[in-house]
């Protein structure tokens, strides 16, 4: 299903805090998270134990998700983090981190770990 990704600052999912005070090997619990509208949840036949595989031409991640009525239908909301930035891009010399087209599917795999992303960035 195609949705629009918006990455925003969330005080309860704050990357700087997790890096400074949290544990690196479980950071995905706080930061690899997406919020979707309950109608999109229904249309994708999601269940509580599933995860979301979110991808576009820039990259892909697997994240936990929660339903949130405040998120408009058709939108997937994520905290700004190294996870959401696997999907953001640059256009005309500007960073594009809002309203990005992404494909969202159900997944049974666990959320992407930080070390997997770091290896990808290092080209390993």
């Amino acid at each position, binding site marked *: 299903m195609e949705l629009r990704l918006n990455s925003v600052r969330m005080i309860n999912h704050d990357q700087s805090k997790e890096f400074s005070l949290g544990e690196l090997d479980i950071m995905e619990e706080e930061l690899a998270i997406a919020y979707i509208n309950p109608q999109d949840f229904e249309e994708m036949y999601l269940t509580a134990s599933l995860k979301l595989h979110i991808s576009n031409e*820039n990259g892909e991640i697997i994240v936990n998700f929660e339903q949130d009525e405040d998120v408009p239908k058709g939108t997937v909301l994520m905290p700004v983090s190294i996870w959401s930035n696997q999907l953001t891009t*640059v256009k005309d010399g500007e960073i594009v981190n809002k309203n990005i087209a992404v494909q969202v599917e159900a997944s049974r795999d666990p959320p992407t770990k930080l070390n997997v992303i770091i290896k990808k*960035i290092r080209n390993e």
Partner: protein
Amino acid sequence: MEKITCTGCSLLCDDIIVKKDGSNIEEIIGACLKGVERFEMISSKHRVLKPYIRDGDSLEEIDWDTALNKVVELINKSNNPLLYGFSNTTCEAQLKAIELAREINGFIDSNSTICQGKALNVAKETGFTTSTLTEVINKSDVMILWGFNAVESIPRLLNKILFSRGKFRMTGREIKTIIILDPIKTDSFNVMGPRDIALLIEPDKDIELIETLKEICCTENALPSNEVAGLDKDDFKRLQTNLTNSEYISIFVGQGLLKNQEGKNPLKSLFELIDIINERNKKGRASIILAGGHFNMMGFEHVALSNTGQNQSLSFNNHQLIESQETIISKIENKDFDLSIILGTDPISHLPMRLSKKLASKPIILIDNSRSGTYLIADLILPTSISGLETDGTAIRLDNVPIKLKKVIDAPQNLLSDEDLLNKIIEKLREKREGI
């Protein structure tokens, strides 16, 4: 008990009380979640306290002499160094960083370039009307949060401007209206009362709304014939009425307005709208405040401008500032650098992967006091004290007011401040060059 300034965000709250027991902070009174997090960094078990050098996946602890020699070696090998960050440090350190960039013929930019600094570049062409927070508190009867989630970005801002009593707004919250324009119903919507206006705008349609307002705002009974940017006529009328009849409109601009829409720059259009309101609204005035997040994001703009005549994206050659159209984005995108020196920021996590991969492909020297995505990639890591808590200095608040930062406690293990470490690097480079 001591009253200090918090460096958790660009609001720089100067009413935080700390209780100390010798060299430990026992209690913090008045800080928000972001502020408390900043204080918690002091004693975090994960705090970076020693210099490290990367050996594959692992980091090897090294002494300071070895670390500084390695910095000099990497810089001397480089023909095209890139310096980036500097919005989480003092103005004094920012000045020193520009000196280092000049010394090594580098390119230096701050986080501001990709955040609220964009607005200042637009303002170079158009000019813009702004206010201090004191003016907002004393005079403002309408506050607009445009693409800006104040509650999660600058948590105490609304306490100060919305729930306070000002000189000309003695009754406080009950006579202040807040208008939020955002495509997402953020937590800031939760502070709204009956007189406030929540406007859920269609994504990337701000420009459409601003252009329509430019045509008909402050004109009696003028309404658009159709829905604009997802706002129906009633919503538009309520917004229009407030822009027309208010005495002091303060518009806080967040990240949501920084990106071009339909090939146009919404900031430029917004600045023009403000001018139009100020011309047509006979009763009052409107102004803009840029709501950047990092505690001294505005500082770099001021320090760079006052010292070089240019507010950001400084390129040096032969120790002179040269003309350049480059920004931090174009430099990384084109891989136009062979070394990066990052201070107090985390570009590996904050930039799109396409850029972070390019940044990671060249050596990185990281100056920071906490772990980050960049910490996990950097080749050399140099820890420093925490600016504003373990170091005195100056910072520029989001409304361009300079604020003095007072050291609260000593840094552990005699860690140098950012300013002192940068100075030491400059001295080492000069010694090496002069063969001392």
